[in-house]
């Protein structure tokens, strides 16, 4: 003992237990494993999320995710709210794809009440959800590029997302927390020139997605940073319960819109893009292709639109019969499910959300171990989590 105490402690780093003993013969002399704390306030964690990394130099040896910083008790809160008030809470789960969240709740309650929304309302819902999927993916391209140090793409993506939000504002009166879908339809019909504006926006978005594609996909640095990083096989992805683009990038063509068509998706013709390698590049590119499919869906849905009612005749205060129901829809992040137990009252007895971000996050440790710290950020970026949904 030289009397200086714990040297690594004095450097402000926590040495692991056992590291004070001389390094074992196999490892490099003089190195110790280090705990690095990333988050909860870290720009690369996309919200309040903490990763505890054990690293050997730049290599990640172990990763422990810590969640719960954004827990608001949404599920419990739902037990105290009317069904129409719950819609406002669902807006705040995954706050980048609010329409898709609302859809899942109203679908579940409609299933329980055996209500059939009018065809026009269903199409408006589909158009809004697909626009929201594109907006969410646009945000992903941008923030993902920022994770890797490319500042430019996010500016283009925000420009295009801004146009989508302007359309949302003209339909629902709000740019993010829309509160627009209702049990039995949508609150208010879209205005007269909606179809024309939506079609123009489709053209704009097509160009916007192409821009992202050209800026990133074929870029040599981008490929170096993403291909072969965080590989997960289709089987492993299914075992982890992953869903959405993360699952499809591994080559499993599972999409709730196709497997269990809800709303009027069965009438629409669209492809389900799948990747092959299951690495970060595939997870990125699947989302580019998906945004293009969404544009196609919107165009078809607009062509199908006919004037008519937008609300089925249901009471403003929905009162579903006693029973239980599970409904799930394809969110931009994956398979979002909601399970409702009703005791016949105006408020649910119990409500449970199956958040795709939360399930996808489980695979983070397996994907990251063995890669560099900088890759941990990239891998987390491709999982595209939204902490509002992870923590609820």
């Amino acid at each position, binding site marked *: 003992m030289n009397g200086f105490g714990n040297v690594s402690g004095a450097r402000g780093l926590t040495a692991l237990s056992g590291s004070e003993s001389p390094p074992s013969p196999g490892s490099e002399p003089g190195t110790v494993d280090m705990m690095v704390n990333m988050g909860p306030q870290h720009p690369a964690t996309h919200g309040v999320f903490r990763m505890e990394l054990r690293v050997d130099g730049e290599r990640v040896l172990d990763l422990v995710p810590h969640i719960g910083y954004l827990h608001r008790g949404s599920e419990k809160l739902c037990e105290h709210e009317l069904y129409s008030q719950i819609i406002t809470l669902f807006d705040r789960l995954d706050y980048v794809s609010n329409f898709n969240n609302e859809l899942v709740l109203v679908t579940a309650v409609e299933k329980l009440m055996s209500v059939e929304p009018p065809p026009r309302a269903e199409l408006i819902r589909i158009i809004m959800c697909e626009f929201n999927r594109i907006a969410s993916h646009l945000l992903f391209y941008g923030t993902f590029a920022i994770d890797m140090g490319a500042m430019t793409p996010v500016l283009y993506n925000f420009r295009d997302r801004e146009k989508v939000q302007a359309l949302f504002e003209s339909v629902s009166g709000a740019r993010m927390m829309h509160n627009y879908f209702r049990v039995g339809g949508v609150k208010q019909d879209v205005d007269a020139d909606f179809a024309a504006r939506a079609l123009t926006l489709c053209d704009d978005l097509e160009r916007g997605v192409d821009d992202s594609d*050209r800026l990133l996909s074929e870029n*040599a640095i981008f490929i170096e940073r993403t291909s072969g990083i965080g590989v997960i096989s289709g089987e492993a992805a299914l075992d982890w319960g992953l869903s959405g683009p993360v699952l499809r990038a591994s080559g499993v063509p599972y999409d709730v819109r196709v497997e269990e068509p809800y709303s009027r998706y069965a009438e629409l013709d669209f492809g389900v893009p799948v990747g092959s390698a299951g690495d970060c590049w595939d997870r990125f590119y699947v989302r580019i292709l998906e945004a293009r499919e969404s544009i196609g869906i919107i165009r078809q849905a607009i062509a199908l639109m006919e004037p008519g009612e937008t609300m089925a005749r249901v009471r403003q205060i929905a009162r579903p019969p006693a029973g239980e129901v599970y409904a799930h829809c394809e969110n931009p992040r994956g398979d979002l499910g909601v399970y409702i137990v009703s005791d016949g009252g105006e408020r649910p007895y119990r409500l449970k959300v199956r958040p795709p971000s939360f399930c996808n996050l489980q695979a983070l440790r397996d994907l990251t171990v063995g890669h560099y710290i900088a890759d941990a950020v990239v891998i987390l970026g491709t999982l595209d989590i939204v902490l509002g949904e992870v923590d609820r």
Partner: protein
Amino acid sequence: MVYGIGLAKGMGVTLKTLLRPAFTVQYPDRRVGVMGAAKAAGISTPGLIFKRPIKAFRAVIGLERVAVRPTQSTRFRGNEFTWYEERCTGCASCAKYCPLGIIKIVTSPGGINVQEGESYAIDTFDIDIGRCMFCALCVEACPYDALHMGSSFERGNYVRMDLVLTKADLNAQAKHPSTWFRPQMEARDFSPFDDVIDDMKQAGRHEMPSVERLTERWVEDRKTDQAEDD
């Protein structure tokens, strides 16, 4: 793979965008040149230079600014609520439907209402917009079209209590009702940014119906509700 192609492609996109007009809006005001300043003042450019040389000079050195209002949809749910006291019956439907319970209403007998005739007088009508999430469920719940969302978004305050809209505030402020869930306003192309509706009769969906019509409606409603319950 040839290195550098990706870089060149990326720069290509950047270059193209450099030549496009800017998408960003400068808020709350933007700098204008001589021509812009003349347009804002409503006179011709030579007129500005000769008649108001100081203003023209300021524009040249970049000191002249004009206010910018971002384009907003008329359905935008803004934060100053529009409320018509004469339309309000004090039924408190809005307060009950609000998920956050931030509307406080106190009534006493003896008021007058355009649609129902005799009703309650509103003693207190407070909305705490500091806690409001602008979901507009209160607007939806109001059976008399007395409450509308506003259209503004500028309400910075130093004190939280200033965010509570009291009855006096609601009556005093200019009424720019949003057209959200108010199809009658949309039907006549009402724009909340240019127009003010001070006359409560124009804000409503319907004028006072006759007693016969009201009774008829209640009977109908009860019948359909009963049919649903069975």
